[in-house]
């Protein structure tokens, strides 16, 4: 695989997340350290930049809600651990927000390349804004990619965690804009007989045999 191919290779949903051993602001961490819990691995372009600072404040704000959901946060950028430490101290001093989660110092871009975080069309020296959700078994469940210019929406990150965990626990799908408490999608029947039975089924709301919702 050429160097450029390595930089643009992407992990795939439903497959084991690429393994790593990384230097972080909380010491050496490995992907396996996060087994039995959900992990949000996210990258930002660089320390001491304004959009990233707003995002870190945003991630710190949702951190307690993530903890309640058994979700860990792990940041990453191609900066040194000293830069990360200086930046989080600066954010606490100037913005009054303590950053409670670790940040990978990925100076050799090893983790960034494994996760396809470097998009040369945007920058070959910075990671774009990515979000990877990895489940307690180490399987990659979600990927989001944002450009350098636009910060992420923390509300959506919490929403999709709720949706992923609900799908995992209840074996259902969730419709567009789903929020906890909303009806969920009943998986469509796979046979004609099951389709005929579905529309007569009590306790579910069907527009047609393939489009049924129910309360959890």
């Amino acid at each position, binding site marked *: 695989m050429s160097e450029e191919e390595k930089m643009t290779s992407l992990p795939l949903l439903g497959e084991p997340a690429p393994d790593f051993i990384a230097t972080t602001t*909380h*010491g*050496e961490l*490995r992907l396996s350290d996060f087994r*039995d*819990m959900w992990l949000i691995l996210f990258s930002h372009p660089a320390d001491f930049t304004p959009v990233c600072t707003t995002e870190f404040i945003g991630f710190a704000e949702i951190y307690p809600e993530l903890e309640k959901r058994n979700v*860990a946060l792990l940041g990453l950028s191609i900066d040194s651990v000293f830069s990360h430490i200086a930046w989080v101290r600066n954010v606490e001093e100037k913005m009054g927000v303590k950053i409670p989660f670790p940040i990978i110092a990925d100076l050799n871009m090893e983790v960034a390349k494994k996760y396809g975080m470097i998009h040369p069309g945007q920058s070959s020296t910075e990671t774009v804004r990515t979000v990877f959700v990895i489940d307690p078994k180490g399987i990659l469940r979600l990927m989001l990619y944002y450009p350098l210019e636009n910060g992420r929406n923390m509300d959506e990150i919490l929403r999709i965690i709720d949706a992923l965990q609900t799908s995992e626990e209840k074996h259902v799908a969730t419709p567009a804009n789903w929020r906890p408490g909303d009806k969920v999608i009943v998986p469509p029947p796979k046979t004609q007989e099951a389709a005929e039975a579905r529309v007569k089924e009590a306790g579910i709301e069907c527009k047609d045999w393939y489009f049924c919702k129910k309360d959890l």
Partner: protein
Amino acid sequence: MPCIDESGNLTESATALLKALIDNSLTSKEISSKIGVPIFKVRSSIRELVEAELLVEVGEKYEITDKGLSFT
């Protein structure tokens, strides 16, 4: 190293982890609950403390060593 500084002193969190094991051996999950530190951080610290011979792994649990006791 986050558990042991350049002077050879244990960090506050590493000391808390060792103290949690003075009376009985515990699993990493039990240590996490007892000291209120996320499991991923406990696993990372345990690796370092085992390497420094302050802890030993016995089955699924961890025990403090005599060397570890001298740090508490």
